[in-house]
């Protein structure tokens, strides 16, 4: 009888140890949860043909430092002869690889990401829709370099006037476009002065929902 009891106890002990071991093993095997979103959010609007690596790097640095979620927003233009809620397959086929590229860079940097596509009649209208619909604490945008289709001075001025939260405007160099499918360029050295035009505004959270 005693022998049977000892055997049962040993079997139970082995089972408990095995289960505990499996849990510990699972715990260490589980990848870091980069995807867990943070309550702080950095909005990063961009348009096709004007996704600045430098602006994205700046947004990722800020997000990493603050433990914030990066919210890349592709701004799509809906022509006047289409309903505003039209499906936009052609623009989406441009947006998808760009959003994938941003997400990969963000994941590499250990920053959670929550992508969006917002539509508008023009760039500024789409931007207005984005800031009206999204929750954010800060906006990072790349101003247009010469000949590029990014945000021009009027867009930036409009954003400063209408968007709450802190706004960081960067001036990209000419060869500063992020191309989907290409690996990251070597990390830059110390932050380059002169390319960041930080515009600090009221720091409160712009919760527009």
């Amino acid at each position, binding site marked *: 009888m005693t022998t049977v009891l000892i055997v049962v106890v040993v079997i139970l002990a082995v089972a408990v140890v095995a289960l505990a071991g*499996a849990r510990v093993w699972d715990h260490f095997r589980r990848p870091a949860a980069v995807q867990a979103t943070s309550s702080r959010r950095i909005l990063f609007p961009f348009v096709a043909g004007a996704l600045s690596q430098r602006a994205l790097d700046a947004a990722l640095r800020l997000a990493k430092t603050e433990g914030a979620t990066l919210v890349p927003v592709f701004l*799509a233009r809906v022509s006047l002869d289409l309903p505003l809620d039209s499906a936009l397959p052609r623009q*989406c*086929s441009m947006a998808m690889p760009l959003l*994938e590229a941003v997400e*990969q860079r963000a994941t*590499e940097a250990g920053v959670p990401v929550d*992508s*969006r596509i917002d539509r508008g009649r023009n760039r500024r209208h789409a931007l207005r829709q984005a800031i009206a619909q999204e929750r954010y604490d800060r906006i990072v945008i790349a101003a247009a370099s010469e000949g590029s289709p990014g945000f021009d001075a009027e867009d930036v001025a409009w954003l400063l006037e209408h968007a709450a939260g802190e706004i960081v405007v960067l001036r990209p160099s000419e060869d500063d476009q992020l191309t989907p499918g290409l*690996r990251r360029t070597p990390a830059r050295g110390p932050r380059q002065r002169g390319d960041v035009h930080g515009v600090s505004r009221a720091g409160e959270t712009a919760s527009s929902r």
Partner: protein
Amino acid sequence: MSNKGHHKIFLGMAAGVGKTYQMLREGQAEAENGRDVVIGYLEPHGRAETVAQAEGIETIPRRRVTYRDSVLEDMDLPGILRRRPELVLIDELAHTNAPGLDHVKRYEDDDDVLDAGIDVFSTVNVQHLESLNDQVAELTGIRVRETVPDAAVGAADEVVLIDITPQSLIERLVAGKVYPAERVPAALNNFFKVENLAALREVALRQVAEEVESKRIPVDGHGRPGDERLIDTAAPGAVGERLLALVTPSPRSQRVVRRAWRSAQRLGAELDILWVANHDANAEEQEQLDALRQLASVLGAHLLIEHGDDVAAVAQRVANDRGTTYVLIGTPEPRGALRRLTKPALPDRLLEALPGIDLRIVADRTKRMKGESA
């Protein structure tokens, strides 16, 4: 047995592909075979090849209508019905008739001719199809005003695609075979760009593929004798693909939706996005659902929210209802040893619940890149 005429439509991606020419050529062949063929309406646009192809076929004179002090010419529907040929060739199905005629649109005239038991050959460009109008406008930046309901094309007995490559069409245009020389530069700068034509060609090919799919072997028991054997051997859904992306209201799901949409684009398939909800969404989840709804809308996909505790069972029901051929899921979260022992993983349950449906697990490609560099 219906006495309605047989309707054959020659569909093209744009003007100049040769729809009218092919219609006339087949009309000539019918006439040579002894059928009574007339031209109900022809718009040759001054193209010499088209005019030459029409020679020898009787033409019903156009009807003249006076409207606001000007005389307009259009197809003479009463004249065709009086003449009662066996086959009538009618160009430009989407045309809007002159005010005061029997019908507003030419496809309605076509219906009257068909109802009279006369066969009709007609032509239309893909951008005139009502359901494709918005899509074509987005693709090309040019909106076409004259449209024809999809049902009018869907009801045709045959739809034949007249297909040439965009490069060949541009060569025809440059050679003056489509428009007079003075209109060529403007056409090249606006509508006749390789990217526009390539997109339209893709739309036209898909449209005809869908027509073929919809007219595939009848499965409602009203097929002709001998069809049953064909039905038995035909793979269901052999042409039409439909994708179902399983998501949860979290940012990770956007990757699944993006990847699913790109696959759907390549396959020319519809995309459904499904969240199986086993609880009411909290504020954070509601925000993510709104984002998914917005994403689905801009992609032209359909977001479905179904309540249930068993994801595989609900996915099975939705897949059966919607004719899904592919299911895409994100990489499952690692599970504890105890859960692995007590319940099979979601991919296993889906494979069991969805026999004959492809299952794809969407990976995080960042991890592949890390693996490469390791």
